[in-house]
């Protein structure tokens, strides 16, 4: 059997991240096409339950359980994953394009002397059995299909919210293999002193199904409460434009756009923002876009499916109310 398809299983607060679940679904499809096993990699401390959860999707789960792995440290994770890959020769290695993966996997690719494609919007197996990854260039103004002919594994990081989730429960009964952590301490040069993260009430923008974003048309920070109310009703995450972040109304973590986050929700509601190109680059792969703006010339209307021409301060409370009624009916 040729080398397996590996999925890096990212988890946070005791839960497998959604982008990983997407890849377990996509990875199963790819593994079937090339005729090999689907393997999940789980690194962490005291996350046995997650190993069992992954085994429902994968043929095999490699589980490293060590206090050293509780916090992400690129020096430790790099040695661990690259070390096993050197032994097992997977042919494909996939992860979501998260902060962690984008920090780690370029380095893994360098260590294994192979290629990596980042922020991919599609993956498929070509006629010659190679992984064809579609990745955006120039902020999505062009797309490129890329392959890696020689190096193995073929590594790709995919944009969260790109693939459908697999069935809620997988029907696989994969084996969980516990692997001892073997790290050369001399090669651990970074020391992670602290991880600061408030408990998240809402999904991160990159993984949110629905996003409501406000621009400078919101007029002041306090008015974002209108978007918070709408987000509550929709189970959405609130985003902001560069102008809003630069004005200090919202943190950079909330920024959607070329110098912020790139998002791909199923519904994106853009309110009081003109649709500057650097913003559009961060949200143009959203499935459905609704915009509310009082300027009929605003470019955002060119990037929207549904447009409401009107005053957001009038429209937003009505929209929240109407959605509450609609969704409340269940």
């Amino acid at each position, binding site marked *: 059997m040729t080398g397996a398809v590996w999925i890096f299983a990212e988890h946070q607060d005791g839960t497998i991240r959604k982008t990983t679940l997407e890849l377990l679904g996509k990875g199963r499809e790819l593994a079937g096409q090339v005729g090999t096993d689907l393997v999940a990699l789980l690194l962490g401390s005291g996350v046995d339950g997650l190993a069992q959860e992954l085994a429902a999707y994968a043929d095999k789960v490699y589980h490293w359980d060590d206090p050293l792995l509780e916090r992400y440290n690129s020096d430790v994770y790099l040695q661990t994953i690259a070390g096993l890959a050197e032994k097992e020769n997977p042919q494909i290695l996939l992860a979501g394009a998260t902060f962690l993966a984008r920090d780690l996997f370029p380095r893994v690719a360098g260590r294994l002397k192979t290629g990596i494609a980042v922020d991919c919007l599609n993956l498929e197996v070509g006629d010659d059995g190679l992984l064809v990854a579609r990745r955006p260039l120039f902020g999505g103004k062009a797309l490129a299909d890329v392959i890696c002919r020689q190096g193995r594994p073929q590594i790709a990081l995919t944009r969260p919210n790109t693939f459908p989730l697999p069935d809620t429960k997988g029907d696989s009964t994969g084996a969980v293999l516990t692997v001892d952590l073997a790290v050369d301490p001399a090669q651990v040069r970074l020391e992670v002193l602290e*991880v600061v993260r408030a408990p998240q009430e809402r999904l991160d923008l990159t993984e949110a199904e629905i996003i409501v974003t406000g621009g400078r048309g919101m007029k002041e920070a306090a008015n974002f409460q209108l978007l918070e109310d709408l987000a509550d009703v929709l189970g959405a995450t609130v985003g902001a434009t560069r102008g809003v972040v630069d004005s200090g109304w919202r943190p950079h973590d909330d920024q959607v756009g070329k110098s912020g986050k790139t998002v791909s929700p199923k519904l994106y509601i853009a309110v009081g923002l003109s649709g500057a190109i650097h913003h559009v680059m961060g949200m143009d792969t959203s499935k459905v876009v609704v915009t509310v703006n009082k300027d009929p010339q605003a470019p955002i209307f060119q990037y929207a499916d549904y447009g409401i021409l009107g005053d957001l301060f009038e429209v937003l409370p009505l929209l929240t109310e109407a959605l509450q009624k609609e969704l409340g009916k269940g």
Partner: protein
Amino acid sequence: MDVNIVVLVKQVPDSEAMVQVKADGSGVEVEDRYALNFFDALAVEEALRIKEQVGEGTVTVVTLGTQKSLEALRTGIAMGADEAVLLEDPAFVGGDEYATAKALAAAVKGIEWDVILCGKEAFDDSSGIVGPLVAEFLGIPHITTVVKVDLSPKERTVIVEREIEGGKEVIKATFPVLLAAQKGLNEPRVPPVTGVMKAMRTEIKKLDGAAIGLSQDEVGKGGSQEEILRYHRPPQRPPVTMIQGEAGDAVKQVVTLLKEEAKVL
């Protein structure tokens, strides 16, 4: 106790530049509107602040490219960098991030440095691969999406804050280390007029493949891992449906459309 810094930079099309995919998918045409990459300007700024804090040291900006890339170096010099290096060789053309990082790492070996700074990604390919790869090829640790740098020149250490989803990591590293700048790290200075004049006078060091000790098959297409098969235009969204009527009606209509037509509720 000086601290020497290398900053990896890139001249990229600005976000407003027109990009047209050729009809046969063989390439792209990009409007001639280039500037120093946004995140790289943050890296240059941080290098200058470190130098100002420490009082001693050299800031060297390095890029791989063509004559067009000289502008990125001149911007770096105009902001206050001391030296500039252009890696230029016809053999470099068509290389991917892997080949580019190989060449940058080889060139950096010939420079004295304690810290390497770069942007977290370039505006054109947005992959963010080159920085970590350079660190790998040099055998030094790296930290990406850096939003705060607290450097102790005497201890030869740095404590950085790195952005993650909804929070941050605080990481300590000892020199040498590579740091990739994220938005929020600083506000890059506007080059002063004297700086711009200095940039025009400063001699830029040029190195080709032989000068950095790499053979032809280690650079450019031959030294690459990734190959672009074809380009595509992004899918076009159908024309917008404008919802007419007063606010109350418009809102009802859009909720119905989202439920029944778009099926996203």
